[in-house]
């Protein structure tokens, strides 16, 4: 099964997601296209990643489960809003994010993301989990529930091997 079909299914069927606020990088763009085509999920394309964080936070108070699907560079742009909105008020927000800058992602414009993203999340005490192989995706509902229980941002990282395959 295509990995994006599987992620979409886990989010929708097993996490109960009904709203997806998104801004693509090239790794998550196929997943976003799938979710945008799903009539059961409200798709909200945004102009900046922090919008996605705030939209998901508002949806939480409407009783709707949501996800922000963004790239690693976009994640770096919105950690301040995650701290002053989600940490401050203990509002869970679940983010699916490309894990850029890994050793198999040799793009010069991703090198800082590769070195500094995890330490930054640890500094903020944001939760994260790395999804590296298709079989890991069965843990997505547990990650989603942990996000709600811990009442803070949770980053579900998708590795290059997961989204591009072993041979890419």
């Amino acid at each position, binding site marked *: 099964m295509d990995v994006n079909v599987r992620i979409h299914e886990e989010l929708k069927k097993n996490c109960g997601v009904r*709203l997806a606020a998104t801004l693509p990088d090239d790794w998550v763009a196929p997943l976003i296209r799938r979710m945008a085509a799903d009539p059961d999920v409200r798709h909200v*394309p945004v*102009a*900046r990643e922090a*919008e996605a*964080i*705030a939209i998901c936070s508002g*949806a939480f108070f409407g009783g*709707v489960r949501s996800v922000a699907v963004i790239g690693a560079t976009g994640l770096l742009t919105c950690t301040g809003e995650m701290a002053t909105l989600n940490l401050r*008020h203990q509002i869970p927000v679940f983010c699916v994010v490309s894990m850029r800058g890994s050793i198999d992602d040799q793009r010069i414009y991703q090198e800082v993301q590769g070195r500094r993203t995890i330490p930054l999340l640890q500094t903020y005490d944001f939760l994260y989990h790395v999804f590296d192989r298709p079989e890991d995706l069965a843990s997505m509902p547990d990650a989603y529930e942990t996000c709600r229980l811990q009442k803070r941002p949770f980053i579900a990282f998708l590795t290059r091997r997961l989204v591009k395959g072993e041979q890419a």
Partner: protein
Amino acid sequence: MKTSEVMKVLALHRGNAVVVCALGMAANEWWAATRSEDSFYMHGAMGFAASFALGLALALPKVPVWVLNADGSLCMNLGCLLTEAGQAPQNLKHFVLDNGVYQTVGAVPMVNGGSADYVGLARAAGIPRARALDDLGQLERQLPGIVEEPGPTFTVLKVEAETGFLRTPPMTYEGPEMKYRFGRALERRLGITVFGPQGY
């Protein structure tokens, strides 16, 4: 118009709208006028009250949602106008308190000297029902119609800047307590489930 007067008029016509306030002046003055617990008062994420309100409006399509934004916050996230226009939620009303200054930090002049045409920006973004009001009588006459028209709508309220720092005190609770008061108020009023069986 004075902001406190505007808030009293808005409160009078609020009906059953759920209100989201930008941090600082908008939040403090709405609290002073209403003591409303089914309103969310941003304490951070400046610029993103409008996005928070959009998420709430999309989650509760049958419930009127108002965002009480401010010019400083709007300028920090002008892209919210594009996203609002793209989603076109019929239940969302966007108000902007425009006093031309960053009031909370001591009435420091706004970027671009406060001369930006926010109504023009909203229309250009795809929100045709946009207007600016600068007179209290005009607001009292037009607000019932604004409340009734389908969203998204965008209303700039031209208010006087105060001199110096904001003197209106903030709401008397914050952080997680605000989350639970707001969420529980919506659960009671709307019969929805925000928190799970174990309270989170």
